[in-house]
């Protein structure tokens, strides 16, 4: 999540809101913009193949059909707004394997997480992936991650703090489970992130990632925030090009 005391930049669904999200060209553009990693969501097809999509359903012949009920062939027939097909995890890992980028996935359930690990293993990229509990899910960390952690002892796991909590107290951090399950860090919604929380998380020995960062003034605020000489570990943005530019100016 961090790179030589420089804030790691995740491109949200590729280039975020400036292109067709979760499309191959959006991922490619983000990589060309200089992001360090891609943050996205996954779904499983009927045969258990991992595809990169936020949506649980696709509109086919006017009906909303769950992705998990569709075969890869059927999913591939669906066209995104830029006329591309929904990419599979394999296609993306294959295309960017020589770039050294990382991948951060919000996973909906243990089965999905395990499939991601299995696919990443085929490409020797398990150390390039992070699996996160989405910030809208209220289950406990142990309910969410125990099965995945039992499957793989080393994969990086991240806890996205529930966005319901605008004031983040220690009890929301689930520190005991964080340590027991060897979870590496926290994703925090930028409207709730502040220096005091950053300091608290670092003192507990975890990584601190801020997500949803938009606007120049907020990017500059988080790119200049330091504790014990260290910048915030990572930022996720829907405007990764600007963020990379400001990071390179501020943290050179």
């Amino acid at each position, binding site marked *: 999540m961090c790179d030589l005391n420089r804030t790691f930049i995740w491109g949200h669904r590729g280039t975020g*809101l400036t292109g067709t999200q979760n499309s191959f060209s959006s991922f490619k553009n983000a990589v060309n913009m200089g992001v360090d990693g891609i943050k996205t969501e996954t779904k499983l097809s009927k045969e258990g193949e991992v595809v990169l999509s936020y949506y649980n359903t696709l509109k086919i012949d006017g009906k909303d059909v769950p992705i998990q009920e569709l075969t890869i062939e059927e999913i591939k027939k669906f066209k995104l707004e830029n006329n591309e097909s929904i990419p599979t995890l394999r296609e993306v890992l294959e295309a960017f394997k020589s770039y050294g980028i990382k991948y951060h996935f919000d996973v909906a359930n243990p089965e999905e997480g395990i499939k991601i690990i299995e696919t990443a293993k085929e490409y020797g990229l398990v150390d390039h992936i992070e699996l996160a509990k989405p910030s809208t899910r209220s289950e406990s960390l142990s309910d969410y991650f125990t099965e995945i952690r039992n499957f793989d002892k080393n994969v990086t796991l991240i806890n996205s703090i529930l*966005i319901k909590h605008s004031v983040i107290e220690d009890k929301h951090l689930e520190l005991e489970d964080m340590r027991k399950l060897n979870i590496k860090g926290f994703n925090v919604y930028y409207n709730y992130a502040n220096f005091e929380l950053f300091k608290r998380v670092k003192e507990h020995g975890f990584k601190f990632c801020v997500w949803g960062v938009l*606007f120049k*003034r907020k990017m500059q605020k988080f790119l200049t925030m330091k504790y014990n000489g260290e910048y915030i570990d990572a930022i996720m943005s829907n405007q990764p090009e600007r963020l990379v530019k400001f990071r390179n100016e501020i943290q050179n």
Partner: protein
Amino acid sequence: MNLTCTGCGEEIETLPLQCAHSLNKNEETNQWECYMENCGIISINEYICESCCTKRNIMKLNKTFERLSLENEEFKEELSFFKKTLLQTKIPNSDFKFWVEFGNGVYLSDKGEKDNPSVIFNCPQKNMNLILEGELSLLGEYFNGNLKIEGDLQYALVFFDIVKLALEINKEIGGV
């Protein structure tokens, strides 16, 4: 004598708390006027009910953001980083609806409904007003069930962020 709303024509049974605290006779117009917190100074002949007052306030806030997108370079620049996104708001048990289009450097809004929004908000009028004023959190209202969101939650978050930025800039430049 009945007090009738000049907006919807309904009889006004109770006055909003903030209304009619300051009634003055305007010597120039020779009319009684009321300082209503949200509406500014209006003549008693234009008196409106709380519901119409909130609607008017919602659209007034939207028009403030619209004006900022034309006049403030920072806000205009930030909006240029988004592609055009349509947000539709519906108010339960009311025919009052409004839409907001943001992106490509502009913020536009009007009463009514538009086709194919990226996200639909369904929220009581008062709560929507307070969200736009920055007094209530969009996520707080979402999690307590007052605000229902159809579509991608991230567009809702982006809209909320844009509103927050607009309020921040508006305050900095001393806007009303």
